[in-house]
């Protein structure tokens, strides 16, 4: 099948989630005997290297009207690319940009959409894709019956491939509408790493007693290059910004390592984090439900244990 991957970028670089989407799209093309192509709106520095992820051709469009991500404008451009390329499967990352554009494009192309995909499509009998449901408590196989299929791949669900292919960059001309959305400002969150893209997440809950005690959590996160997260009551009490709130009614994440400090592990919290590959729990209550969902655990006081973890990590990393 002909595959088209939407490449999202920020600050002049392709987002990690889009490299995952590219690797995923290339694999679908390989499995179904098609070509993997991609489209980028803008000019991030690293587009040449998309060949490594298996992208054979990259349609590139640059235009003054693309500064703000206006889903209406982007959708109309992508429709033109799909028509030109004859794409049958379109892959987005299910990140903030994908969530804004993929549903619109699905309507425009009358294409079935699987949002939140976590595995490659199964084409043995029709076209079905596995996605998370009930905030990670279960999964569903979604069958797509339209000619064109759109998949929005959850971040951290597919490994980035590093091959040695090359990508041909093809400039693309399209009708570009004037955006109706104007960006007037932006702010970065406290952590250095975006929560949904992070490999490692350090998270803390009400067990930390107050916002003044987050220094050790931040230090550990810094050491591990991790993003910060928190439980809902912590965000509700304004100890931490709301965009760090993970769980069923916050952000759902699937990092390689999730470290939960002073979090009880309520069902609603677990729902958003239980897809993490390895979970480490530090809690002074041996009965805390989180231990049932954990891979490694320490029953102990966070105020004693976390500084020790920091020291041990420094030691292993050769930092004194």
């Amino acid at each position: 099948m002909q595959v088209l991957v939407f490449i999202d970028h920020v600050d002049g670089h392709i987002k990690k989630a889009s490299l995952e989407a590219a690797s995923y799209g290339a694999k679908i093309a390989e499995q179904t005997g098609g070509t993997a192509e991609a489209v980028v709106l803008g000019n991030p520095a690293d587009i040449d290297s998309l060949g490594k992820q298996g992208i054979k051709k990259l349609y590139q469009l640059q235009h003054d009207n693309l500064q703000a991500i206006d889903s209406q404008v982007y959708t109309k451009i992508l429709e033109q690319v799909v028509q030109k390329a004859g794409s049958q499967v379109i892959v987005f990352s299910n990140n903030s940009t994908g969530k804004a554009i993929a549903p619109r494009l699905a309507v425009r192309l009358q294409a079935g959409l699987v949002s939140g995909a976590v595995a490659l499509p199964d084409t043995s009998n029709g076209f079905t894709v596995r996605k998370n449901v009930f905030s990670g408590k279960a999964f569903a196989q979604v069958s797509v019956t339209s000619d064109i299929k759109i998949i929005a791949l959850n971040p951290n669900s597919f490994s980035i491939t590093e091959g040695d292919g090359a990508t041909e960059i093809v400039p693309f001309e399209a009708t570009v509408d004037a955006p109706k959305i104007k960006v007037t400002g932006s702010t970065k969150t406290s952590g250095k790493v975006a929560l949904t893209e992070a490999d490692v997440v350090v998270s803390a809950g009400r067990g930390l007693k107050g916002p003044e005690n987050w220094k050790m959590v931040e230090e550990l996160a810094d050491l591990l290059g991790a993003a910060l997260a928190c439980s809902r009551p912590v965000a509700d009490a304004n100890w931490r910004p709301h965009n760090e709130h993970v769980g069923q009614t916050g952000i759902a994440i699937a990092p390689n390592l999730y470290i939960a400090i002073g979090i009880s592990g309520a069902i609603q919290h677990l729902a958003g984090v239980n897809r993490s590959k390895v979970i480490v729990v530090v809690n002074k209550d041996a009965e805390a439900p989180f231990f049932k969902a954990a891979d490694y655990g320490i029953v102990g006081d966070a105020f004693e244990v976390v500084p020790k973890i920091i020291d041990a990590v420094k030691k292993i990393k050769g930092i004194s």
Partner: protein
Amino acid sequence: MKILVCISKTPDTTAKIAFTDNNTKFAEAGVQWILNPYDEWYALVRAIELKEKDASSVIHLVNVGGTDAEPIIRKALALGGDEAIRINVTPTDPFTVATQLAEVAKQGGYDLILTGKETIDYNNGSVGGMLAEMLDIPYVALATNLQIDGTTATVKREIEGGEETVEVSLPIVISAQKGMAEARIPNMRGIMAARSKPLKVVEPVQVEPLAKAVEFGLPPAKAGVKLVSPDNVEELVRLLHEEARII
């Protein structure tokens, strides 16, 4: 201002997740149903706050669902919706739901349409974007703040690693999440008033899904926790380094 809030019914967050009919259906027996938290806490409450600032505003609620959705619709009316429309069909997938909503939205001539960022059961987060496309109006997803000044909306939206402030003219569709408003509890007056507020039932249009969940499953259980003594924290870091290979 005319506001439409799209509301859906979801299982309670503590509901047991299980499937029946050869794993093709969510097992509804014994499940408590709630108003989807994103729709209630953020979309609806923000609409109510906007109405409190501008009393000439009206809030319409719309739900795609059977009679079983009426309790959650009444709750939304008790919180502060003015009237509700129920489109009488069981929801199956975002595309058909958005198609039904678009019919109501087109007839109502709304300035602002709010949805939650996703439902907590199927986690699609697609209805808002699909609806906006069907209406051919702008869509701002994952909004954490919304201010309206005349016909201009100023919206904060989540982007990876931060937030962006955007300006856009009405009419628009917005999907709401945490930050947008503070959850409220309906009061006695609201509950009494909700009983007599209009709840109109309309019949659905004909539409077929393009993608549909055909089978469900549960993730494999964890192998069990490996406990490390608090006096031997270096062992934990060693395990993460050597066994799990992540540090």
